[in-house]
């Protein structure tokens, strides 16, 4: 863990939690004013059921993330992505992004390591775009339970070209800059 990593993590939770508390309070007040106490209770019940369903998935998945980070050090991944050239590198960066089993606290340190290991801008963009749009971790924890298999399949198919397209645009961006 680098020091940047630690400071980002330490600064984050309180403000974010407060943001969600405020958002929940404001929107709950809105529902209460709009539909009354019964409507608010119904909304809280639905949210509670979601929480019960999703909590075990999140807990298990966070430890999956912990194991992958412990067993597969960032330096190793960065070296793999640094050593392979051309189109193969885009493919590897896509696969690495899809498999990164963590939120931004896992993905961004890897991008830092990648870019320190000499990976060019476009490869970093391919990795980040693949992690953001096709990351398996997020699809399994959040998207499947909420949106269902049919929609998720459609979204994944439609997003498949996104990482490589982002990489090609990033290459154009680099070429255009003086």
């Amino acid at each position: 863990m680098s020091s940047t990593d630690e400071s980002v993590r330490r600064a984050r939770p309180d403000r974010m939690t407060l943001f969600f508390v405020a958002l929940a309070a404001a929107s709950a007040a809105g529902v209460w004013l709009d539909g009354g106490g019964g409507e608010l209770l119904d909304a809280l019940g639905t949210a509670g059921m979601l929480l019960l369903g999703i909590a075990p998935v999140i807990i298990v998945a966070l430890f999956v993330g912990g194991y992958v980070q412990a067993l597969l050090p960032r330096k190793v991944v960065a070296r793999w992505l640094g050593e392979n050239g051309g189109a193969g590198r885009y493919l590897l960066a896509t696969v690495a992004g899809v498999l990164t089993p963590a939120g931004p606290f896992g993905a961004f340190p890897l991008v830092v390591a990648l870019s320190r290991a000499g990976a060019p801008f476009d490869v970093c963009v391919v990795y980040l775009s693949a992690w953001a749009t096709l990351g398996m971790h997020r699809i399994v924890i959040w998207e499947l339970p909420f949106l269902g298999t049919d929609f998720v399949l459609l979204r994944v198919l439609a997003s498949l070209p996104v990482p490589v397209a982002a990489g090609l645009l990033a290459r154009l961006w680099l070429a255009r800059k003086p």
Partner: protein
Amino acid sequence: MSGFLMPLGFVSVMLAVLVLYAQLRDRAAHATAAARGWDQLRALAPRIPFALVAAECIGRLLPRDHVAALLGADAGLTGILAGSLVGGLLPGGPMVAFPLAIALFRAGADQAPLVALLTAWSLIAVNRTLLFEVPMMGVRFTLARLAVSAPLPFLAGLLAALIR
């Protein structure tokens, strides 16, 4: 509730495989993995209940006729463009975006605009960009990445409309 069983089974099998691998190859990994998992759980746990309540309540407050007009099946390309814009401006992590997406779906949004919305949200993610990308990668990297990502949500939405 059955929607959660498949994901739970999937992550449980993954965890079992990783625990077994660590047990056989690298026992020191158990402690590191547990510490990393626990750290992240401690950071997320207080937020998730509030985020779910917020998303459910915001979903109920959405004006249905406006949602259907803006993101519905009849909105066509404009709907895909609107989905990209809404997704790009949407703050918060997955615990806000996905419950909100299902609320929009119930309120009459069509699939292709929602694909554009989720793609834009996942690529641009205002909070994540400000909290992680700018401090760790710098402003230049972040702006360049956002610039090359800008057209992609619309393309994903268009592709979704064509596939379906």
